[in-house]
């Protein structure tokens, strides 16, 4: 059996994932030894679209060109892994997804779109799974080194990665932090996937939700709680959407449809993961 072929591809985002991978030190060199890296734009020249065992994706899809590239990568790759919340959920640039007015925002920055973009039609930002099937997800903004190594190791060995499915609160308790929600701060810990090691909470910073929505979560309950603590609907929506990407937009839509959101049953939010 030859070496497994790996390719890292990057769409719209901040390249945070590639930077985390570059920070894997000795493990990165082990990975290079064990595999053939066909694409890693941040680290090497000669990047190709070619047959792959594992394709690793970073960033969300914001142009027709990226959409085509993504589909091409899918057609070449046995396994596709979305890394980072841009690729997994759409990232911050998807926070207004479905709200309308995207064209207007676009024109404000770039002028009249049709004249400008002939071959590379821009799109409203969407996660990778809006266009192709994704096999595994590594959430985080940016991803965590340990979770990346865990995942890539399992995928290389032909098994599935197993990342925490619980929310940030669990890790926050492991680190023995005082609950900020109880102090009245708008912490998104209960809605956010664990795996960051409760990084912000250890610094008294309320969770902003950058690991994306948890596998199973109770949005109405936290919504209600924050209303009780005196936050306005607008503030809460803004906070929930910041890193919630496509799945949170859907979830909030559902909640807001009910005139009395507090009676809404907690939706099971799968987020495609």
């Amino acid at each position, binding site marked *: 059996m030859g070496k497994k072929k790996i390719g890292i591809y990057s769409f719209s985002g901040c*390249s*945070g994932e590639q930077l985390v991978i570059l920070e894997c*030190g000795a493990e990165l060199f082990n990975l290079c030894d064990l595999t053939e890296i066909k694409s890693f734009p*941040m680290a*090497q020249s000669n990047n190709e679209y070619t047959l792959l065992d594992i394709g690793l994706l970073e960033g969300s899809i*914001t142009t027709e060109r990226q959409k085509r590239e993504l589909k091409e990568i899918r057609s070449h790759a046995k396994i596709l892994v979305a890394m980072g919340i841009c690729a997994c959920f759409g990232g*911050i640039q998807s926070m207004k997804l479905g709200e309308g007015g995207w064209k207007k925002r676009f024109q404000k920055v*770039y002028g009249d779109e049709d004249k400008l973009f002939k071959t590379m039609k821009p799109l409203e930002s969407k996660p990778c799974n809006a266009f192709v099937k994704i096999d595994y997800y590594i959430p985080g903004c940016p991803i965590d080194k340990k979770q990346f190594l865990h995942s890539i190791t399992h995928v290389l060995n032909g098994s599935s990665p197993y990342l925490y499915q619980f929310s940030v609160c669990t890790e926050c308790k492991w680190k023995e932090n005082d609950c900020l929600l109880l102090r009245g701060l708008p912490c998104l810990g209960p809605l956010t996937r664990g795996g960051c090691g409760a990084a912000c909470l250890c610094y008294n910073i309320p969770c902003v939700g950058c690991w994306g929505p948890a596998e199973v979560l109770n949005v109405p309950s936290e919504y209600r709680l924050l209303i009780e603590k005196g936050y306005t609907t607008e503030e809460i929506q803004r906070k929930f959407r910041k890193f919630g990407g496509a799945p949170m937009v859907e979830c909030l839509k559902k909640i807001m449809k009910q005139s009395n959101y507090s009676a809404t049953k907690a939706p099971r939010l799968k987020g495609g993961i």
Partner: protein
Amino acid sequence: MKRIFIKSLARVEGHGGITVKIDGKKVKDVKVQIYEGPRLIEKLVVGKSPEDVLNIVPRICGICTLSHRYAALKGLEKALNIEVPLRTRLTRDLMLIGEIIQSHSLHIFFLSLPDFLGYSSAMDMVDNYGEEVKRGLAMKGFGYRLMEIISARIIHGENPILGGFGAHPSQKVLVEIKESAEKLVSDAEKIVELFASFDYPSYVEYDTTFMALNPPDGKYGFVSNSILISTDEERSVEEYKEVIQERVVPYSFAKRSRYNGEPFTVGAIARINLLGERLSGKAGDYYKKLYSKRWLRNPFFNNLAQAIEVLYCLETIPKLVDKIMGLEEPVVKKPFKDAGTGTGAVEAPRGTLYHYYSMKDGLITDCDIATPTAQNLDDIERCLRTAVGNLLSKGIEDDLELKLEMIARAYDPCISCSAHLVKVETSNNSD
């Protein structure tokens, strides 16, 4: 007509390409293209609270996340008249230094060094240049450690907030940082010497203007409220829009920057050219030993400038840490204003970064971000044009692509950053 097309620039942050059109021995056109998709960050923050802004804008770029955060903090704090205690300011400077060490080591070792040693990536260099790679990793790791300690994470840490920090770094970790920095100085010297040993080609040379922030008290540094220009002009950061004259050029419909109608350079090379005299210690010694007039004309010296800056940073850390430890931990004060405008600027690793905000009723009404790479783009194009012209006139046509890529990389462009402003330009067959 011949067309050189570098579809995708590798070993830079983000997605870009270069197109050069050549007619016989003449350069017809040079374009740096940005494929990075639009994220509309400046519009996303409109209607958000300042706290939200601080979560969002650092995500523009994974490398210079803290520079964005710092510039945004300065802009917002000015807008809201928030007074920032000295200890907080010094700790922020320390964190920015971490980012500069990290970003420079990444560029020097992983993005640039393979070019000079003839490899396609740093991973391939391990067998023959293990020491260098190890040194690079250690240096980058140290930069990240510093960022992590102060900002809460290696990338996109949320600890720096309006007016202060969620938690200040403890004495224990500060001491740890100081000791590690002292140990790494000799490594940094080796890096400077390595980059001093390369022959930088002269076909890129031309005259340009440099711009950098001018730290107070005649010191070297990365934070200030005034812009120094190599024409001996000095302006306040509030006037940045006039100084860097963002404009739309007809062929690319993209915002580009010029100073008095001419391209200019920002970044480590600009800082050394403008402020190098102020360096002291070992960094100062190397500056005196290595600096020449060629630095004013040749962007390849940016690599060496970055190496000297890494040395400067390591030498500065112990002093900064001592100062910080001598001060009381301040408490964060809540702003009492909810409207205003403010511009913040810091020297990001790649050059001056401006953030402008205007606020009403506690929410952002307007935002403008000018990133170093956007400011450099015109200059990169001009440099590429100069180089292709010089090479063609000497009849050198092999490896043109590589040579051009090396030039673009020398500027250490960060395309994610520039992409929220720069319009995509594609020639028809490029897609």
